[in-house]
């Protein structure tokens, strides 16, 4: 890791993790146990999360510099990963991406393409990018910096990332053989309020944990579909002192607090 200037907060008691720092730790947890795969975080807090994971409990993760080089934990080039090779890692299933979501529904269908009717959108966004391929090939998590009913919707306007129970229903012309299993592997959705997952019998989204200080009712209120809420909702863990120190050294300018105030 690069030796950054010490954060002004580094000598303050580490019990005072900010919401952004709790989000970084929650993102890091997404990659726990993944082994030597390509971790592709989109957005500053997921990037900090993946780097935190690699510095601590997931040292085997591969990460790029955002362009074509694989950098090790110390920032040295350890490999070459141009886009063509990223696509091969996608198809090989050896990747876990954390993408954003302009819209996401109860079963994890995600939209980053456009809002409104696709033929003439109210708002054109990025486009599907690699979301369709990612979601049918390898593990996918999502990061939503502002948990709201605008994002957590009944139905997304354009299915980019494929959710559960849809895996093959979008195939036209031929019904897939019964033996063909969907490869959908959605891990977690981390937001500024909570961590959500799909570990329910029907693979509908459930509230896994609320961040410290957040009432589960607030999460329900900001979610535009019926969220599964267990009787006892866990509280998202706060970073340990060493983790907090790492986060602050990885992001000395505090950009994380702009993403989640």
């Amino acid at each position, binding site marked *: 890791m690069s030796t950054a200037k010490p954060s002004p907060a580094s000598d303050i008691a580490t019990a005072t993790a900010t919401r952004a720092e709790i989000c970084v730790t929650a993102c890091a947890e997404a990659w726990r146990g993944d082994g030597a795969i390509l971790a592709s975080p989109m957005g500053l807090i997921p990037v900090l999360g993946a780097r935190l994971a690699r510095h601590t409990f997931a040292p085997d993760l591969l990460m790029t510099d955002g*362009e*074509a*080089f694989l950098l090790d934990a110390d920032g040295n080039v350890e490999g070459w990963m*141009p*886009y*063509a090779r990223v*696509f091969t890692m*996608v*198809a090989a*299933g050896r990747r876990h991406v954390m993408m954003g979501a302009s819209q996401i529904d109860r079963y994890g269908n995600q939209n980053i*393409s*456009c809002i409104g009717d*696709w033929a*003439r*959108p*109210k*708002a*054109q*966004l*990025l*486009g*599907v*990018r*690699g*979301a*369709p*391929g990612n*979601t*049918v*090939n390898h593990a996918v998590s999502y990061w939503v910096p502002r948990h709201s009913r605008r994002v957590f919707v009944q139905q997304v306007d*354009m*299915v*980019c*990332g*494929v959710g559960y129970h*849809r*895996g*093959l*229903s*979008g*195939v*036209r*012309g*031929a019904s*897939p*053989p019964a*033996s*063909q*299993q*969907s*490869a*959908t592997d959605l891990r977690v959705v981390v937001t500024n309020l909570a961590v959500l997952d799909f570990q329910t019998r029907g693979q509908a989204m459930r509230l896994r944990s609320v961040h410290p200080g957040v009432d589960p009712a607030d999460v329900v209120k900001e979610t535009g579909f019926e969220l599964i809420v267990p009787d006892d909702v866990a509280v998202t863990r706060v970073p340990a002192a060493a983790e907090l120190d790492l986060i602050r050294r990885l992001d000395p300018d505090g950009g994380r607090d702009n993403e989640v105030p």
Partner: protein
Amino acid sequence: MTVAVLTPDEMVAELRDGMTIGIGGWGSRRKPMALVRAMLRSTLRDLVVVSYAGPDVGLLIASGQARRIVTGFASLDSIALEPHFRNGRQRGTVELTELDEGMLHWGLLAAAHRLPFLPIRAGLGSDVMRVNPGLRTIRSPYPGGAGSQDGEELVAMPALRLDAALVHMNRADAAGNGQYLGPDPYFDDLFCLAAERAYVSCERIDPALTGPPQSLLLNRAMVHGVTETPNGAHFTSCVPDYGRDEQFQRRYATAAADPDSWQRFRAGYLDGDEAAYQQAVRP
């Protein structure tokens, strides 16, 4: 095949209305912008543009010359959304073939290999199938194993054949060999092989290309014309020769937000020739 050393305007004069044109680079990285600017000065129209889209696509939408875009995204990288692409889509002035970025790769590879299609999983279950009703699927004729299943259903990604490809290299020689010196070749070699005719602009035509032979991405069998356009990828990045001109890109994106300011931008930078452009953007 003889490779011609041409001017950008001579290259563009070989293109025709209605052609399908592939443009190399990625987002706002190593785009053949001098060739795009030459297209803006031409009367070309009704074009289908295949690209990992950035300001190349944005400019051809703003000029009204692109009828359809084939892409997975349009971005300026440091500015997430391409403003003219947004305008064109929201105003309904441009058609879109929206594909997963891996499907686009596969379509170019199929065309380069002269195959009608290549199978891929990307697209299955997504609305890419809904918005591209012409896409078909195919069932594997082989037993499963090694990650695939018996009779697996796959998308049959059709070849994306191009009438012409435009790419920008760091170096080339007059024979038509092209060299990239940056971190990523993107898909420029496939764009050239997928095309009937491939046109290469470069920072410098060098009679004796040096550096690792692995950086010689394009060979002269893939190329029909070469042109030297110093700073020709501006304002996109062309490392190690230069990075993206972020300040100018912000000016471009801001100007795109409003028709009057776009008119002024166009008059100030794009209505003249390449020499006038380079003079205007010189710091």
